[in-house]
């Protein structure tokens, strides 16, 4: 399987290659190889997996199929799997019913800016927590980690007033900045940077590099897989988020994709043949990112599990 190859090779330091941690655990090859060719057990497993896969695909298929049916077909007594004819005009009708392209634009702005900000400050802080010893380090790190368990809703009321005070209601800043410090991202960054050999940092320091220069010239080039994971995750978090935009945004022109979706359902004039195309449009960007960068998604999820 091709995907076992790491994206960045670390020829210079093969024995301390930090990408290894990720590579091994996401290896596509089954570890246990059976010498017998195709056994009964494998056949049973294969059939079971096919059945399971069918169940998993069904909702996606149902969304796509509904997106292309006519409203009459959808509301007829006979539930059909495939549309009688492909009605692509559903997408145009749906975009007429809600300014969804604007929502997608908002979500793209928020997600992309949030990625830039979050990845930068998480890597910076992750580096500090991993490679410096300073007073209060453990306390501050634990404080940050403890917020992993806190749902947005607990802090919702005070945050609403803080945002109001900052005049950040209905603004991109309100959608981006408060959520930029991601506990999970910081945790991932620290774990990953811990594996970078101290000798690299020391060597740069002896050469007279400033602390920030060490970060940009030594650390950043060595954590490209981490950055990839963080970029993809932050994009997914911000793109998929509903609770926070619900607090920050009240004006229709500032709606994000998820807000738009959540609101569309409550409207009486809108049909399922319009809701499903919008849902499909909302999923396509994140699904494309996933299909192209699947390896990083899985690395991130699995990598976070290796904490103990």
């Amino acid at each position, binding site marked *: 399987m091709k995907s076992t190859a790491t994206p960045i090779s670390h020829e210079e330091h093969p024995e301390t290659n930090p990408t290894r941690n990720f590579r091994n*655990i*996401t290896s*596509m090859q*089954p*570890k*246990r190889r*059976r010498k017998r060719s195709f056994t009964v057990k*494998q056949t049973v*497993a294969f059939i079971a*997996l096919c059945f399971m*896969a069918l169940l998993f695909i069904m*909702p*996606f298929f*149902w*969304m796509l199929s509904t997106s292309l049916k006519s409203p009459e077909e*959808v509301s*007829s007594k006979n*539930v059909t*799997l495939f549309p009688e004819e492909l009605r692509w005009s559903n997408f145009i009708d749906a975009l007429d019913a809600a300014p969804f392209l604007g929502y997608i634009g908002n979500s793209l702005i928020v997600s992309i800016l949030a990625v830039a900000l979050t990845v930068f*400050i*998480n890597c*910076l802080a992750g580096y*500090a*927590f991993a490679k*410096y010893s300073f007073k209060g380090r453990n306390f501050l790190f634990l*404080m*940050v980690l403890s917020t992993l*368990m*806190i*749902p947005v*809703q*607990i*802090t*919702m*009321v*005070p*945050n609403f007033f*803080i945002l109001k005070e900052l005049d950040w209601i209905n603004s991109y800043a309100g959608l981006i*900045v*408060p959520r930029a*410090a991601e506990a999970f991202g*910081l945790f991932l960054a620290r774990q990953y940077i811990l594996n970078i050999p101290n000798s690299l940092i020391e060597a740069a320091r002896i050469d007279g590099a*400033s*602390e920030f220069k060490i970060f940009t010239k030594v650390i950043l080039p060595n954590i490209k897989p981490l950055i990839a994971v963080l970029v993809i995750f932050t994009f997914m978090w911000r793109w*998929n988020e*509903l*609770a926070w935009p*619900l607090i920050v945004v009240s004006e229709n022109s500032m709606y994000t994709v*998820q807000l738009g*979706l*959540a609101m569309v359902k409550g409207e009486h004039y809108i049909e399922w043949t319009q809701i*499903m195309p919008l849902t499909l449009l*909302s999923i396509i960007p994140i699904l494309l990112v*996933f299909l192209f960068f*699947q390896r990083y*998604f899985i690395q991130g*999820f699995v990598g976070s*599990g290796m*904490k*103990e």
Partner: protein
Amino acid sequence: MYFMKNWYKKNSIAIAPYIFIAPNVLLFLIFMIIPIIFTFYISFHDWGILGAPVFIGFQNFVKLFSDKVFWTSLGNTVYYTAATVPLSAAFGLLGAILLNRKIPLRPIFRTIFFAPVVVSMTAAGLIWTWMFNPHYGLFNEILSYFGIGSVDWLTSTTWAMPAIIITTLWLRIGYCLVIYLAGLQAVPDSLYEAADMDGANDWQKFWRITLPMIKPTTVFIIVMEVIHGFMVFDLIYTMTNGGPGFSTTVIVQYIYQKAFVEGDMGYASAIGTVFFLIIMVLTAIQLRIGRDDS
């Protein structure tokens, strides 16, 4: 200026880390820690949409204890978590075991199982609301092939929560599966070879080798899924908004409802405070389990 620069240069190793963590820590402080403390403070006040907060002592908490909806929503949160955590872990493990062998189309299977994990809860909520439609939805149609009659999923106080749980399984099994797959691949082959020599069957190998060896993975998955279960909001907000009645109202959604729909900031903060304490106790238990384990 020169002296300052010189001073920084000399002490940069001591100062730099504070500068590096400053953006993160400040954001946490302003948008997490201070709001939590502020939530405690507001919970002792009567505060509507208009007007200033009025100190009322423990009245919000007294009201909370006799608030049936609060207890229902707490019960629903536990119901949801207690159902989704073991089920998604078990199906995830089953899928991982099936996948952890030489099998055709293996990467494709993994992609299919994992794909729902990246889908937003809002989108998933809409797709499954439509799947569960009692007249035109696919779910009842499939059930009818097996001779099961039509169920009014999301409009029934009995079946709305199971419907949300089924949706959650679709969203979360892939996550558990991928983590378990990594856990399974870390189990040394030699253990299975030794068991083969002793004539152990697959069932024995699963209970005696696989399950004990992947226990840290299981603990991790349970912790992650419990966090997920206690925080569930988007899915319920889109699928039922807590209804019918209060049959799917969970705590976080009740907080949102009280604060932003009914405008009772003080009472919402009291619920938030109690929920925060519950989470702290839960975290302490999980830390204890995690420590015993390692």
